[in-house]
Structures are given as structure tokens and as C-alpha cells.
């Protein structure tokens, strides 16, 4: 019955195409904290319409919040700085890439230290905030690329696993 309704809908509205993976949604916004609540909610809703669970969406929202806050706080030097968030959505995962103009040398050094892991995959003990640690706990992969002009790009991969052991300790 549901299938017939679906077919009828497609006849009336042929543009109601089913989402096919992978696809990508890019958001570019000013480097201002004001924008982060709206952006994190947008990513959460985007995941939910892509058939990810609300739990997955909520935890991804936390990742977005952390990486966007870091980008605004440490990756914006000029008044007109913009942040670009690329959401690449696959049927089994979401990948976030956030790009900013890069912060001061001190900020970059702190970022590198916060991301650095030793050969066993364990994080070095630092006095940094818990932001990236939370991101690491909620994701499968976290990489940072800093180019020659200090442009910083943080890449996070989070896999769809409804029964995964969430919030496992990182070491």
C-alpha cells in the first residue's frame, strides 16, 4: 500500500527524487559564534532526512558544534573571515571537513598538539580543552591539515552504526 502511494506521488511530483548517496552539502558562513547554533541544527536535520537516526544526528551535531567553535575561536584572524563546512553524506557514514583561514602560530601549535596521537593511537596528555577529545570519542577518524599559508582543514569521519558502543574512552 505504501509503495503504491509512493508511486502515485512520483507520478504527480516526478521531482520528488529519492536521495541517492553519496552527496555533499557545503555551508559557508561568517566566522562568528552567532551562526553555530543554526548550522549545527541544520546538519542534524540534514542527517535525519537522509535516514540517519536521531541519536546519530544529535551526536553528529555535537561534533559540528565543537569543530565550528574551534574554527571561530582559533581559526579566524580577520573581521571578514569565513568558515566552510563540507558535509559529505554516504549511506554508511558522514564526513565533515571544516576549513578556516588559520589562526596564530600559537593556535596552530595547540591544535597540532591536541590532535597528535602516539604510535598506539593514544592521545598525548595535554592541558588543552576537551573539545577535540569529544570529537575523537564520537568519530572514527580525525585529521588536521595545515597548508603553507596556515589555512586549516579539519576532517572528521563518523560511521553509521546504530548499535555501536557510543562514547567509548579513547585510551
Amino acid at each position, binding site marked *: 500500500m505504501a509503495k503504491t502511494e509512493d508511486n502515485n506521488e512520483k507520478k504527480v*511530483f516526478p*521531482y*520528488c*527524487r529519492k*536521495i*541517492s548517496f553519496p*552527496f*555533499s*552539502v*557545503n*555551508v*559557508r*558562513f*561568517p*566566522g*562568528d*559564534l*552567532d*551562526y553555530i*547554533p*543554526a*548550522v549545527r*541544527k*541544520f546538519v542534524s*536535520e*540534514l542527517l535525519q*532526512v*537522509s535516514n540517519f537516526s536521531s541519536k546519530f544526528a544529535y551526536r553528529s551535531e555535537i561534533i559540528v558544534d565543537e569543530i565550528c567553535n574551534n574554527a571561530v*575561536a582559533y581559526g*579566524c*584572524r580577520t*573581521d571578514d573571515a*569565513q568558515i566552510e563546512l563540507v558535509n559529505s553524506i554516504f549511506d554508511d557514514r558522514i564526513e565533515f571537513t571544516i576549513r578556516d583561514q588559520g589562526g596564530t602560530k600559537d593556535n596552530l601549535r595547540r591544535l597540532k598538539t591536541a590532535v597528535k596521537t602516539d604510535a598506539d593511537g593514544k592521545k598525548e596528555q595535554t592541558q588543552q580543552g576537551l573539545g577535540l577529545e569529544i570529537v575523537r570519542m564520537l568519530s572514527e577518524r580525525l585529521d588536521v591539515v595545515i597548508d603553507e599559508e596556515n589555512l586549516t582543514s579539519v576532517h572528521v569521519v563518523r560511521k553509521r552504526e546504530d548499535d555501536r558502543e557510543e562514547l567509548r574512552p579513547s585510551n
Partner: protein
Amino acid sequence: MTTQRMEIDIQEVPGAEGVAILHFSGDLISESVRRINECFSAVGKKGKTYAIVDMTEVSLISSAALGEFMGCRKRLIEQHGDLVFSGLDLEMRTKLNLMGATKIFRIYTDIRTALNSYKWEIERQPEKIHVSFPPYLKIVPPLRQLVSRIARQKGYGNRDSFRIETIVDEICNNAVEHGKPGADDLIDLSVIIDPDKIEIDVRNMSDPDKVASLTALLLPENAEVDKLKPDVKRGRGLTLIKMLSDKLSVECTDRGTSVRVKKVREE
């Protein structure tokens, strides 16, 4: 216990003529009040009406010094400016909160955020948001919510935000419906917002089969409200946008379609 001598460094901001950044350091005790006053008088003589007080290096602030800041703020507000704080640590912020100062002064995390606020409120500089997305109808509801939330966050009222949301919904739905299908042909949504108005621009690749019918639809004689047929259930989108906005322009060519809407803030 010895007190640290208060130091003040005044910095001008290129490109923001009315702004002065005052870097304070040390202890702001009652003996500092006279110097604070002199400093703000000097700032005022230079024609600066918006003072950002950087408290990153301040270790103590007395109630007398806070009172002096309140007096200075009052003078700046009379000249349509303001005095705001930035760079307060958690301890200092808690103390100001206990003194009730957070109800009077606006406090920003850093100088850049304070400057952004100045540029938004006083210079009324626009800010730009850009989203590119594949032509799937299901993505439109999160998008309309995104723009509506941003409008609310930026101080727009509920009615304005809802109308903006409706406009975004209509033009994005049209872009999905009439644009070129295929996930590779992304739709671009640009939003330029300032305290007085919002401009929305949606661009998509045109579906070659629909260009002629779309161009005919856009002719002025077909867009009048009284030409709408009551028995036809669809095709009211652009008319609705016209009613809700202040300016609407549509450009449809073989290469792409661009819909631009301007909505002036009402509340």
C-alpha cells in the same frame, strides 16, 4: 599583597573609524579611576564613540573602577556609541555577574567578536551565508529552517523570520522542481543579511526541456494574482513570494536560472 600598576594602551582600528580598543592591564583599583576617565576623554576627543575594553590582562577590577566605566559608557551612548568588554576570564566574568554588571555591559569573548558586533549594529555591514546542495526536495525543510534560525539569531522578529522561511522554501522547491536533475548539478543558495534587510539568491542549472515553459510563466501577464485559476492547485509560488517580499527578479536562460528576492525587515 601588592597591587599591579594599571596600564592602558589605546589602539585604533583601520577601517572602523569610530572604534577604539583600550587594552587594560594590572589592577583597576579606586586610584585608577582618574586615569580611566582621562583615557576615555582622550578617546572622545578623537571622535571615537565605540570603545572595546580588552580585559585579557586585567587581574582585578574594583567597584569604583566599574562605576567609572558605567559613567564613560553613558557618555558614549549619548553619542550613539557604546562601551563593551572583551577577553574576560571566567573568574572576572563571575565577579562582574555578581555585581550585576553583566546586565549593563555587553561582554564578548574576544576583540574580533566585539568588532563584528560593531560592524553589524553601528556600520550595518551585511554578512553572507552560502549553501550549495543537490536537488533533493527533502533537503529543503532543513534549509528553510537554517535561514529562519539565522534571521532570528540576528534579531529579526518571528513574523519576519517565518516569512523569510516561506520565501526560501518556495524558491528552493522551485529550483529542485524546475532545475536540472542530478546530484552533480548543485543548487546555490546565497543569503546576504544586514540589520535592515535580507537578500536571498538561488541559482540552479536549467532543465533544457523546461526553459521555454518557465520563460512563458515569468511573463508579467501570467504572474498577476487575478490571473490565477481557482481550479488549479499549483503555480502560486512566485505570486506568494511577491506578496511576502519587497523585490523579486527572475532570470532564466539556457545556462541557469537565478531567483533574487529582497525582503526589508518589518519588526
